[in-house]
């Protein structure tokens, strides 16, 4: 019996059980003198639970058994799959049904059973997020360890040369490929730095203006407009950076006699900064808002102007929070992929010149994994090692930022 007929039979059985269970409970209510907590449909649900939990459990068990590399003859597996398993499932469901209906009486605390099951389901749902993190860490770690078996760790972390092409033939010259990731890290840092140079002043100043100067009406109109910047998909920014900004910078460079390539770090960085502006501004907005009014009033009372208050009182008071916000923005810039994939270069280039093309960690991950993959080559595995570094760095930045912001909140609570 295949899956769907079995499922239909099970559902039919539980429907019958539901009807029978609630009916039996209702008919017995008149004889009982106690206060009855469950509602009639809960008796039905109780029966359904007993009819469905054993088959689901058995099914999970069988699936797990099939996944384990237990050597079994194909014939046996098929036989179990076709005859033994369905019969067992139906028997279990039948037994569950029969026993639970037998047990039903109005004084049975069925609500407790049902809620116990619901509680377990809720916990299972919450564990999904932990499993996700675990999945990320384990899969990255596993592949990274494989990678370090092929490429020494010192080369990866300290090597200055990145060219992951593996050769077709073993005896080819320069066939091994080199995996020094320093150029990628410097490239990432360069673009992130440019992005921050755009996003932090613009974001911070807009936040100050919004909180300290703007009228309610101005805020109501401009804030959502700024938020649009955060809602635009990154692939759109990438297209904009590659097609408009990169070409614009190149033309400007041509006209004043500087050589700017169209995949310059500058173009990618500026556009990335543009994307991060609302992120910085809305975080700083919250943080400046959280500075107590009494500090402002004290400053005004001493005769300070608004700008003096902002510069000498509010910003110093909000500094830890703002640092946290900037760290979060940095972590976002480091992990950003599409803008750099479309607008930054692909060849590794160890330089600090923003007018040249550099490549980043995310660009290389995409480059290594899109297209043909063979899963044992150092080339594919390198992507996982890079991703692990990326994950570790962004995680650290976030943890630090969260701690800083929390400390700051506690100060004024």
């Amino acid at each position, binding site marked *: 019996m295949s899956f769907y007929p079995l499922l239909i039979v099970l559902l039919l059985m539980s429907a019958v059980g539901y009807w029978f269970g609630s009916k039996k409970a209702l008919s017995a209510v008149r004889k009982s003198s106690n206060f009855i907590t469950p509602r009639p449909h809960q008796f039905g649900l109780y029966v359904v639970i007993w009819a469905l939990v054993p088959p689901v459990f058995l099914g999970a068990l069988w699936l797990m058994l099939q996944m384990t590399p237990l050597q079994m003859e194909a014939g046996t597996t098929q036989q179990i799959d076709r005859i033994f398993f369905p019969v067992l499932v139906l028997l279990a469901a039948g037994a569950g049904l029969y026993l639970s209906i037998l047990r039903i009486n109005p004084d049975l605390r069925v609500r407790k059973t049902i*809620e116990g099951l*619901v509680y377990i*389901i*809720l916990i299972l*749902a*919450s*564990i*999904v*997020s*932990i499993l*996700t*993190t675990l*999945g*990320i860490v384990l*899969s*990255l770690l596993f*592949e990274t360890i494989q990678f370090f078996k092929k490429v020494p760790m010192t080369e990866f972390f300290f090597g200055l040369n990145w060219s992951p092409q593996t050769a077709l033939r073993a005896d080819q010259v320069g066939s091994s490929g080199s995996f020094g990731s320093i150029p990628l890290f410097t490239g990432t840092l360069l673009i992130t730095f440019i992005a921050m140079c755009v996003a932090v002043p*613009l974001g911070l*100043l*807009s936040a*100050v*203006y919004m909180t*300290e*100067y703007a009228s309610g009406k101005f805020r109501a109109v*401009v804030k959502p*407009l*700024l938020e649009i*910047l955060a*809602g*635009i*998909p990154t*692939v*759109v920014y*990438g*297209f*904009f950076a590659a*097609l*408009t900004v990169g070409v614009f910078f190149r033309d400007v460079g041509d006209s004043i006699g500087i050589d700017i390539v169209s995949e310059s770090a500058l173009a990618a960085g500026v556009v990335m900064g*543009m994307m991060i502006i609302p992120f910085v*501004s809305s975080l700083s907005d919250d943080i400046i808002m959280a500075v107590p009014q009494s500090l402002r009033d004290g400053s005004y009372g001493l005769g300070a102007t*608004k*700008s*003096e208050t902002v510069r000498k009182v509010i910003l110093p008071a909000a500094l830890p929070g703002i640092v946290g916000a900037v760290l979060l923005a940095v972590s*976002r810039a480091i*992990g950003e*992929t*599409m803008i750099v*994939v*479309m607008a930054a270069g692909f060849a590794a280039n160890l330089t600090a010149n923003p007018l040249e093309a550099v490549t980043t960690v995310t660009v290389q*991950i995409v480059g290594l*994994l*899109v297209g043909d993959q063979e*899963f044992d080559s150092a080339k594919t595995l390198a992507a*996982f090692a890079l*991703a692990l570094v*990326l*994950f570790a760095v*962004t*995680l650290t930045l*976030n943890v630090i930022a969260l701690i800083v912001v929390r400390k700051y909140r506690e100060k004024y609570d």
Partner: protein
Amino acid sequence: MTDTQNDVEATGWRSDKFIAGLAKRKRSERRFRLTGLLAILTALTLLGILLFSIFSTGYTAFIQTYITLDVTFSESVIDKNGARDPAELRAANYNRLVQDALRKKFPEVTSRGDLRTLFSLVSNDASQTLREMVEKDPGLIGKTVPVRLLAGDDVDMVRKGYIDRESAEEDRRVKNEELVWLDALLKEGAVSTHFNSGFFTNGDSREPEKAGIAGAMVGSFYTLIITMIIAFPIGVMTAIYLEEFAPKNKLNDLIEVNINNLAAVPSIVFGLLGLAIFLNVAHLPRSAPLVGGLTLALMTLPTIIIAARAAIRAVPDSIRQAALGLGASSQQAAFHHILPLSMPGILTGTIIGLSQALGETAPLLMIGMVAFIADVPSTISDPATVMPVQIYLWADSSERAFVEKTSGAIMVLLGFLILMNAFAIVLRKKFERRW
């Protein structure tokens, strides 16, 4: 002595120094204020430039150039036996008809190379159009009728002004002779532009004039449905558990910290997770919306959980107390009272999370949704692509005509995003309750 007298008089707020200083301070105040305003204006200008550059190149994607030719459906070409056999009609060489029509129009073109250039004026989709016409009405055979055919992308680009006629011939894709033919057609009024419905009904194609976003739209739709089916219930259940039931212990602290950190993990890392778990361990089909949806669901989950928790927390405790006081169990209070009251907030957060998922590209590149797929997917396990990835693919194409297609696709994507966000705002405005 008079000096000291002056000093005494000039102290305090009336002193010259103070007055001069005040003016300076006021100036700096104005300057500071202006800087703030300038920062906002700069950000908005950048947004304006971005939108303008997309819209100004993109709106032409919705128009397409057509050439009207007098096509003779000669029996000798498409139905040699005269039997009107449907199988034979389907297999016939309709391209020949188009070529004959062009040859008739420009009898002076004879050399092979020139003829090839001439034939490229009309898209190779034209034969398809003719075949459909004949299959619908076999009575056409033997007649000569004017037919509107899709123009090739070069003609389209010239017509829309993207190719500079003045530049040197070697620098442009379209050669002088082509321009001469095109001008002749233009003078006759044979060239016309119409709404490009193919953009919304065709799948991807190597020929820019035929490429459409239908496949990507359907792929995005399937992916988003999977994301919603997985992420919404799990997210809501997690939020309820954490807000209503979770006792304060190590495990629940871990879950909380973990969710906050997951929200900040770069999206590309989720792509690698999808690749390692769903493709390499579970062996689900590559490039399928199923895998894309699962990956995006894991990515969207933290957003939904955080939004749902905020919405649940906003429901006042009195509701809970009242329910418990009337004999509801804590689960009944949660599911019958708190959850329905926080639903508008949860749905708003979910829609915003889904709109992020709709615009996400990087994780889908990792699980192979970047292949060239011309067909519109019909199930969730067919190879497919999604709108942002389609934009990425077209942006990578070298042909000039794909630039406007890319911008056009971006406009459609932005349209969907605006629609979703507007829906979320309406939902919030209409149902949100302030307690």
